[in-house]
């Protein structure tokens, strides 16, 4: 076989493998999105309808309660709860994480690795395992089924990862910059806000998005700590569509679109910084 032909075959193989990979990654998601725009009748049709005859926004109108034939599931409320809970817990986790990440990146202290590992190990506790005692304690404190109760839990869920990421971003900024500023008369506090914070800003934003998505997507804890429209989030609300015997596929798909679209947009914006933060913090120790 000639060399040129071999190279061509190899390139073709590479392309085919990539194509297959992208199909496997994207088809499941796209199919759900497509089903969100199709009437239930078409989804259930036998023989299957492959090419949709008409796309409709009816499912979305239904789950958000517009028009006559609305679903009895308060998706709008869930959406608002998710936004409030994920947003608030992200802001708090970022503030705590910035302080902690800065401490790890800029100070030498004893048992540093142990502290770091300790924080990470707290994050390891499986959500469902943590939910049992938190459920009992929160009921005693009277904050079960409140947004506050879930926000507190999500802050603790996000702090370790936020510290991991932000530590990595601060490390990439040479310490000499802030030292120079301090020589010129800034206090350490001023040097932080004028020099180091602006440089790490995009990284901190990436950590924020990651924290937001963790809370936005969380199910195990939320499913046990929430009961009503006061605090139920979107992932928990998704389970409302499955009753014992029937599943509203079209409604569920539409709701899936509502959950996934903000997540994808946010991921797209910060993907570069997120990869940099995870690898730098981890590899350079």
């Amino acid at each position, binding site marked *: 076989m000639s060399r040129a032909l071999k190279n061509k075959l190899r390139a073709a193989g*590479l392309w085919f493998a*990539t194509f297959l990979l992208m199909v496997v*990654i994207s088809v*499941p*998601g796209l*199919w*759900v999105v497509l089903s969100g725009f199709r009437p239930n009748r078409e989804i*259930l049709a036998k*023989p*299957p309808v*492959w090419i949709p005859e008409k796309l409709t926004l009816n499912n979305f109108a239904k789950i958000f309660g517009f028009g006559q034939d609305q679903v009895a599931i308060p998706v709008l409320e869930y959406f608002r709860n998710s936004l409030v809970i994920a947003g608030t817990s992200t802001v708090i986790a970022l*503030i*705590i994480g910035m*302080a902690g990440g800065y401490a*790890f990146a800029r*100070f030498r*202290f004893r048992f540093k*690795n142990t502290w770091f*590992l300790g*924080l*990470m190990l*707290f994050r*390891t*506790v*499986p959500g*469902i*395992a*943590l939910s*049992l*005692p*938190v459920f009992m*304690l929160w009921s005693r404190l009277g904050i079960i089924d409140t947004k506050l109760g879930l926000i*507190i*839990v999500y*802050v*603790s869920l996000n*702090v370790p990862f936020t510290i991991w990421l932000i530590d990595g971003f601060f490390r990439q900024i040479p310490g000499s910059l802030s030292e120079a500023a301090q020589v010129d008369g800034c206090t350490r506090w001023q040097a932080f806000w004028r020099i180091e914070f602006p440089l790490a800003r995009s990284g901190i934003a990436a950590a924020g998005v990651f924290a937001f998505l963790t809370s*936005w*997507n*969380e*199910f195990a804890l939320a499913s*046990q700590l929430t009961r009503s429209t006061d605090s139920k989030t979107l*992932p928990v609300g*998704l*389970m409302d569509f499955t009753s014992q015997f029937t599943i509203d*596929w079209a409604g*569920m*798909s539409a709701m*899936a679109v509502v*959950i996934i679209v903000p*997540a*994808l947009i946010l*991921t*797209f914006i910060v993907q570069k910084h997120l*990869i940099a933060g*995870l*690898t730098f913090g*981890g*590899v350079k*120790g």
Partner: protein
Amino acid sequence: MLRYLRTRQAKLTPILLLSPALFTMLFVVALPLLFSLYTSLTPYRLTRPETIETFIGLRNYIRLFSDPDFWSAFGRTILFLAIALNVEFLLGLGIALLINRITWGQRTLRTIMMFPMMFSPILVGFQFKFIFNDNIGILNNALQSLGITDQAIPWLVDGKLAMFSIIFAEVWMSTSVFAILLLAGLFAMPRDPLEAAKVDGCNSWQVFRHITLPFIMPFAFIAMTIRSLDVARAYDIVSVMTGGGPAGRTELLWTLIARTGYENSRMGEANAMAYISTILSIAFTYFFFTKLVAARRYMGGAE
């Protein structure tokens, strides 16, 4: 004196900066865990609140260790993790090597790769429940339309197939963690050793085995550490796809905890189980973290 104060301050600052984080973790994680340790030593039932005051020692644990249901869920969880993590690592490595060789559209590919990672596990579960549905799922529809089979394959109804479907969903969701971090490792790799090895007459397998692989191993361990932090995400997938069924054939430790604690309201026993699952997760994370530190040292990292 001034110098003494300054060093003292320098010692206190990191502790001060870390204290909000420590406080949060203590209040929201450590304290509840202590409470659940106590509860695991009582026969506490949600329906009978006074039972929390009865101390029964290790009886819950002893009962669990002689319970075949617990052991089968435990074994299944270990098997599930072993299969999922290995497949994810190998696939992720393959994908990273593949994308690394592609010159055109690499960025787009990497972005698409990242999406499954950001899917809510509950959505991944729903998505595959939909796809693997025996009646209306796209998979069976496709198989039937293509004439490969004329029967509806019971993906989520048959015990073995259901386990396969769940592992498939898990791998779909988490392979990208490995692929992306390993790809970042490949990007960061210096070119000189590769070329030197080529000049010295190494074939491509030898180059991969002795240069590329050792270099990207720390990245693999980062991915493993990140993954082991939230292996319990599989709970979400299982609870929406099969709920542990059919007949407990896909019951993992985590779904068993939820069933015992909330549905059967046997909180004491559930807490004992939760403790075992927590120790399991911590062991996983600790193992990979020490590997990461060792690999980092081998690479001449900062510490």
